[in-house]
């Protein structure tokens, strides 16, 4: 007699079996995809069939303009972009550090009074709010604000990168500080260490290599951002790209964009190499 199939141990594969909840999620995702594609006029057929404008653009880019004057302009723009991104990340990290320290959630002491809890909670929420404002406004909007306030040039661009970097790094720093192993922290608190002592000797040493890694990554992001801040007049190579685009000088655009890609890749490689060598 054949045993009924229900007696076989049923384990199943890696793909979950049909159930209504995931099916509904898939349906919602499909619906959103169609709706968004219709709304944005997303048309792959158009992209593949009507290639003439792209061909024209690419063919006009070649050969790139490698004249001494263009190379000089490119070099100057790239250096400025590099300087903006570096200063932006550095100032951002410096501003982010104290804000992140305050924005780090620490469990209140067991049995602490209401006043003692408030002393912790108020600076926590204020610094979180500041970091949220810094972060949620995109760097290009910060650049617009600073260009209006300070005039054209790389200085407002650098400030924009610094403010946005501070917002992002502050959030990531505080998350790193919160995620460090808790036992050494508890051991310090058990011997009567206060907030400053727990932070300096418990959280910071454990989070330091994470900070360095995050800051390097933010610098990479800043290099990419700095290339487009020029579009709103905030300095860097973006300004040169925009001017050349407007003059239909596509060979020069090719040189500028090509150089930007190479520099971004080099910085990425350098930063990744440093990050992989960090000792935890």
């Amino acid at each position, binding site marked *: 007699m054949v045993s009924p199939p229900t007696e076989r141990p049923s384990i199943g594969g890696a793909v979950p079996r049909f159930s209504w909840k995931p099916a509904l999620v898939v349906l919602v995702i499909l619906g959103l995809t169609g709706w968004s594609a219709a709304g944005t006029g997303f048309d792959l057929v158009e992209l593949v069939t009507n290639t003439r404008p792209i061909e024209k653009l690419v063919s006009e880019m070649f050969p790139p303009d490698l004249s001494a004057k263009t190379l000089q302009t490119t070099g100057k723009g790239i250096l400025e972009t590099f300087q903006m991104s570096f200063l932006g990340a550095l100032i951002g990290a410096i501003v982010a550090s104290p804000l992140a320290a305050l924005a780090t959630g620490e469990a209140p002491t*067991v049995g*602490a009074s209401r006043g*003692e809890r408030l002393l912790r909670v108020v600076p926590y929420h204020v610094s979180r709010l500041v970091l949220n404002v810094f972060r949620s406004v995109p760097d290009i909007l910060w650049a617009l604000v600073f260009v209006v306030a300070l005039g054209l040039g790389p200085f407002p661009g650098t400030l924009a990168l610094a403010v946005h970097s501070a917002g992002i790094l502050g959030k990531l720093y505080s998350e790193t500080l919160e995620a460090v192993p808790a036992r050494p922290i*508890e*051991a310090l608190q058990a*011997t*009567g*260490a206060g907030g400053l002592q727990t932070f300096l*000797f418990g959280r910071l*040493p454990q989070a330091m290599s994470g900070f360095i890694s995050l800051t390097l990554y933010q610098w990479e992001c800043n290099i990419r951002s700095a290339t487009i801040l020029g579009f709103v007049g905030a300095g860097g190579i973006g300004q040169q790209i925009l001017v050349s685009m407007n003059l239909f000088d596509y060979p020069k655009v090719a040189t500028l964009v090509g150089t930007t890609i190479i520099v971004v890749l080099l910085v990425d490689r350098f930063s990744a190499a440093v990050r992989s060598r960090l000792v935890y």
Partner: protein
Amino acid sequence: MISSMHSKKTSAQDLILKDVTVSFSGTTALDSVTLRVEPNERLAVVGASGAGKTTLFRVLTRTVPLQGGRTIVGGRDLYALSNKELKGVRRRIGSIYQAYNLVPQLPAGVNAALGEVGGMGAWGTLRTFLVGPDGPLASRVADALERVGLGDKADARTVNLSGGQQQRVAVARLLVQRPDLILADEPFAAVDPVTTERVFEALLDLNREGATLLVNLHDVELARRFPRVVALREGRIAFDGSPEQLSEEALHQIYAGDSRQQGARAEPADTRPGDPIPLAEGRDGISAH
């Protein structure tokens, strides 16, 4: 200085727990525990995993909320103190753990110096953070590391030390702190026998020098070297007396038949033939977490 030395001898030494009850989301970890420990006493706390040993220690540093009862440390109700007063009491309590709980990235010397960090002001803390411990503290750290046989490791990153060496750094931290009360939570569970003996001797030395010593233990033979043994079972005190009174039968009562663990453990407690004391879960020191 003299007055603080004097107060060191009188504060945070005797402990009184009165009907202490602690529960975590419905599970009772300590159930109306009443315990009195005299100044300079030395006692071992034994019991199966989950019996409430670690919770008992956490009550003594006010790191778990109480559902009932009182904890009196050095004559003061621990749970009624302000944060500042609590820090003062905690400074006089030294802790040592199974997992060492050192800061792995710091040099061993700085970890040892952290025994004293609670007593530093903001400037002292910053100074120590930036340039290291000042002269007197630095020499105490050097002495303490020398005493645990790690005199040459002050600058070594703690993470690069072996487990036994890290536990010795934790002992050096205690030696620097010179606490009046020592809470050692399974200090030998993750170290080799030689380190066990060494750490044990250091703890006894501190006890001889005046500190009250409470040690959580899995190893009943080690517990027998203490003049007083307290056993916990299901959050209650199941035994409190001298090791001579701790019969095989009493041990069996303490470790076997834990109603909360029977359902989870298929293996009955007495399946090891020839083993006079059935090794219940956790007593091997591996499954203690």
